[in-house]
């Protein structure tokens, strides 16, 4: 397991993805590609109302429609509601008033799009037609879609068990100490920040095929899921009451997920029930795009009251936030965990801030549930702290890079435990920030961006009728969330462990099958696992195949999310390879008539120390040991080893992103001119894949800053209900990203990797938002909420131009800013 050996092989090489041949030539196999004899099709009737009681449902007409095989309503479903696996843990206060969806609603609907009935028919077209023939007698109820308003007196109430629509009130950090520090501070800056709701938009919507086998009383489900093993556990033990070994979950190729496919969804038990009711005919349900917008989880949706306090020399003493987190009409699988553990506990970012206190109120509203979307809590935290640093710098008149530099956790402070951080695992082990060195990334990014010439660039833009702005985001994030003993001890995990698994077999022909518990959704795991295993065993990469995502035949794993696969899953693969090598060494000793202590390994070669000509290759050893004609006493045939890995700690990637924007004075349009990203993701298994992950993540984060917004009307109708009204970023709107790196290996895994799946999305939103706000500073605009659309910016410029505040929702404790006077207005 020496890293020296790894470096000489394919790990670290920019190898093209082996899965791309099938995926980009249309030969992938997604859920909708599954064809089975007798396949029937399901469509779901979704509520047109955001809040309503169901007085009655008339299914008679629908049942008589052509091709209709079955119509199912909530009362027909014998299963439990879906589980909620990650309650907000720790502190006191109102705790986790849990209401989760059922396969079909029985007690009324809580959002526009909640499923109330399902039709199964011979064709998808017939199912879609028959769904329209179901007659529901609705009793519409008052609605509330805003998390802060939902907690106020008189707001419509969603659940009798959750007074004032509060799911939980949770806090972390030193409340009294933070209050004292803020009261005593030289400077305090306050701001209300809205982190708007987003629709994740994977290219492949969700979908399932359910099949019940009457002969064996077993269930099989093909699902577009990030977590097939977890889904089997949840469906068996919590939802359906079916023994776990009687359910098989298969995730075929998954066309993107961004977190949305981690969770347990109502359609999983529904397709299985539908198949059972048809005595085993397989049933397919494929989500339409509009349906995806209405019924798959959304992301973000925070309203935050921020206070940041410190000294005029730029030292930050304390940060206090109160955040209202919109969790939707019912709770998704780990909804409460996102704005608590994954947001509030990383709120201090890469800064050494002595006092941090965060209150989070989880709230029900008449909207679809909110859960993890790429970054999950960390983009929200990064946005808050990076806006806070800019606001504080502006208040005291300090350079924005300088204030960051001044407050960075210094490189000699690692491992570093932050004051509101992830806490202590059972047995006393601390969850700490593993490693970091933040200034080199900042310096590199500043140099590339030409930060020193910013004033000149701004003046030049003004001559063209533009306002130029530059924004910094010196982000940090937590990846590879672990270990299990922390998840269990703090009570803030998702009620499950956090290890990973891998099985490696070396077949008689020397070809290697690696079977893993994680589940790719576009990250290229079939390539990167093969790189790692090939190097560990000294075999060519093309001799390794990576299998995954089927509970039948893969070891249990917790799946892929939270940028955890490389740190946790690939360490399990390295351990399994280590076991293979140990056994191969013992057999090589037998073959070479040497003592096992004298066997040395170099790549594929196992030789007697001092006599390199006396050697056997891993392929020769596998051949002989698979035949086992000459196996020594006590040695089992075959090279087949499984390993489980529970990582000792999380990993903490970091870096500096810089966005440079220009704003058109007449229209408010933002043009993203340049984007510079210096990321430290530790060591890289495949730099090409790392760059691809960064590109996609940055684009998504820019999308939030400038264009994307899920908008519900006051009546709870999803107004941004299709791609005609929900603006995803387009390649032509983005500049060529300027990527660079620093490399600080993580000490918590043998590869030294930190994870990269979310970094781009975590960093870029704040960088672009800071750049736009910087560009608007000449108008006296201190802060604008996202998305920083042309219309919003234009309105703010107009308001500022007319002498009003123009700082949408801002407030200032010390009253010296936000004056709104224009300074450099043309």
């Amino acid at each position, binding site marked *: 397991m020496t890293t020296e050996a790894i470096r000489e092989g394919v790990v670290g090489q920019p190898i093209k993805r082996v899965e791309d041949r099938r995926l980009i030539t249309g030969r992938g196999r997604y859920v909708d590609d599954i064809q089975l004899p007798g396949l029937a099709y399901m469509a779901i009737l979704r509520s047109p109302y955001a809040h309503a009681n169901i007085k009655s449902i008339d299914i008679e007409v629908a049942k008589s429609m052509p091709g209709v095989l079955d119509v199912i309503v909530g009362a027909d479903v014998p299963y439990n509601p879906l589980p909620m696996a990650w309650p907000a843990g720790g502190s006191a206060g109102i705790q986790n008033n849990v209401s989760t969806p059922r396969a079909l609603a029985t007690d009324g609907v809580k959002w526009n799009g909640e499923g109330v009935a399902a039709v199964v028919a011979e064709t998808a077209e017939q199912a879609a*037609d028959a769904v*329209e023939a179901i007659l529901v007698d609705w009793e519409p109820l008052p609605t509330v879609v805003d998390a802060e308003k939902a907690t106020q007196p008189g707001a419509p109430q969603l659940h009798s068990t959750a007074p004032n629509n509060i799911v939980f009130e949770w806090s972390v950090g030193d409340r009294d100490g933070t209050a004292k520090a803020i009261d005593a501070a030289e400077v305090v800056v306050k701001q209300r920040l809205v982190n708007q709701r987003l629709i994740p938009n994977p290219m492949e919507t969700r979908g399932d095929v359910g099949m019940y086998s009457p002969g064996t009383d077993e269930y099989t489900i093909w699902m577009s899921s990030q977590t097939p093993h977890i889904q089997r556990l949840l469906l068996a033990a919590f939802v359906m009451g079916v023994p776990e070994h009687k359910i098989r979950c298969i995730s075929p190729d998954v066309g993107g997920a961004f977190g949305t496919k981690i969770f347990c969804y109502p359609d999983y038990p529904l397709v299985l029930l539908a198949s059972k009711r048809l005595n085993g005919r397989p049933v397919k349900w494929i989500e339409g795009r509009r349906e995806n917008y209405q019924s798959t989880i959304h992301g973000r949706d925070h309203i935050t009251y921020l206070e940041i306090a410190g000294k005029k020399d730029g030292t930050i003493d304390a940060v206090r936030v109160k955040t209202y987190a919109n969790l939707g009409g019912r709770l998704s699988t780990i909804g409460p965990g996102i704005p608590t553990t994954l947001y509030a506990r990383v709120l201090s970012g890469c800064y050494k801030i002595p006092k941090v206190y965060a209150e989070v109120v989880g709230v029900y509203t008449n909207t679809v549930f909110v859960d993890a979307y790429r970054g999950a809590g960390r983009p929200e935290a990064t946005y808050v702290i990076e806006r806070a640093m800019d606001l504080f710098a502006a208040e005291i008149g300090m350079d924005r890079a300088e204030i960051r530099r001044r407050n960075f956790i210094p490189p000699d402070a690692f491992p570093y435990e932050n004051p509101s951080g992830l806490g202590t695992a059972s047995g006393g082990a601390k969850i700490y920030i593993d490693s970091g060195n933040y200034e080199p990334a900042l310096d590199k990014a500043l140099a590339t961006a030409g930060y020193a010439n910013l004033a000149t660039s701004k003046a030049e833009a003004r001559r063209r009728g533009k306002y130029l702005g530059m924004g910094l985001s010196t982000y940090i994030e937590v990846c590879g969330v672990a270990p299990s003993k922390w998840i269990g001890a703090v009570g803030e995990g998702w009620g499950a462990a956090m290890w990973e698994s891998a099985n490696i077999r070396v077949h008689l022909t020397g070809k290697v099958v690696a079977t893993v518990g994680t589940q790719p959704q576009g990250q290229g795991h079939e390539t990167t696992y093969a790189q790692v295993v090939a190097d560990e065993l000294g075999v060519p990469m093309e001799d390794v195949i990576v299998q995954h995502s089927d509970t039948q035949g893969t070891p249990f794993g917790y799946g892929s999310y939270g940028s955890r696969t490389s740190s946790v899953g690939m360490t399990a693969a390295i351990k399994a390879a280590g076991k293979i090598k140990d056994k191969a060494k013992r057999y090589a000793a037998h073959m070479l008539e040497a003592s096992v202590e004298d066997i040395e390994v170099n790549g594929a070669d196992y030789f007697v120390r001092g006599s390199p000509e006396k050697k056997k290759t891993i392929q020769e050893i596998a051949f002989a040991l698979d035949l086992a004609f000459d196996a020594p006493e006590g040695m089992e045939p075959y090279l087949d080893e499984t390993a489980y890995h529970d990582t000792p700690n999380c990993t903490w990637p970091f870096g500096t992103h810089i966005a440079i924007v220009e704003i058109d004075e007449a*229209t408010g349009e933002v043009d993203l001119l340049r984007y510079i990203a210096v990321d430290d993701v530790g060591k890289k298994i495949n730099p090409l894949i790392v760059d691809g992950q960064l590109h996609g993540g940055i684009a998504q984060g820019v999308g939030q800053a400038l264009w994307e917004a899920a908008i519900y009307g006051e009546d709870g109708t999803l107004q941004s209900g299709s791609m005609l009204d929900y*603006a*995803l970023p387009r390649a032509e709107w983005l500049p060529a990203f300027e990527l660079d790196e620093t490399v600080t290996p993580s000490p918590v895994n043998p590869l030294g990797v930190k994870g990269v799946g979310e970094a781009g999305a975590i960093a870029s939103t704040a960088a672009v938002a800071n750049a736009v706000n910087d560009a608007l500073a000449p108008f006296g605009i201190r802060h604008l909420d996202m998305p920083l659309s042309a*219309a919003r910016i*234009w309105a703010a410029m107009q308001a500022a131009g007319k002498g009003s505040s123009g700082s949408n929702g801002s407030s200032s404790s010390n009253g010296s800013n936000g004056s709104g006077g224009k300074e450099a207005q043309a």
Partner: protein
Amino acid sequence: MIPAAFDYSRASTVDEALALLMEHGADAKLIAGGQSLLPYMKLRLARPDRLIDIGRIDSLRGVRALPDGRLAIGALTTYAQLLDEPKVMGLALLADALPRIADVQVRNRGTIGGAIAHADPAADIPAVLLALDAEVVARSAHHGERTIPIGEFFEGAFSTALTPDELLTEIRVPSPSGSYGSAYRMLEQPASGFAIAGVAAVIGQTGGFSADAPIDDVRVAVTGVGERPYRAAAVEDALRGTKLGSAAIGNAVGAITDGVEVQGDIHADVAYRTAMAGVMARRALEAARERLNE
């Protein structure tokens, strides 16, 4: 995303199409490229009982110059074909607008006739044709052929002067003598790509170019702003007879939404849309002025 059931007929000739329209009339929808109609049908916002597919009537495809110099554009000519057509791309206004319409796939299928028959109030082509003073040729089995001035064609959002038995066959673009400049400027709604405000401007000196003479032909058409595309008569009146100086343009475009009920939505409220109509009008007029003698 599955349309409601519908019947389907394919017409191979104009006469077949007219006969099918006679038979099915208001219950049927013509489909050409399908780039607007099919998405609406998939969302079940449109539910025609029957589609009459005219997509393979080759006689309705292509661009030709009429003897009097006018350009005749067949209704089924796709955006992609227009982009490849020098006679079309020679008109600066169309050269501005066509490359911005949707994406390559849509431009390969979508037709100019379909675009105006669909009459989306934020589409680009209607404003362009309004500013060009185009004519629409329609034919029916009963009444034969008639010509509809483009100014009378758009009656409201998704509503035109075409009767249920009529087939739009051709669009004719005049070729006035004199010196002309034109431009199209639009602010895009980022999700749909349709206009928050789009303005097509045509300006001319009918007696030929003269740096000292006033502009005596001004046409300004607006899309995305009202419930239908319109000519901004107040702006045209204010600028006709001027030399189209920047100050004159700046003053005139303040009237760009006069008499129009400006629409507001989640992307742009009435104030923003009104202001952007003015900005786009100014930019289109200034660009047209630059091109006057090209």
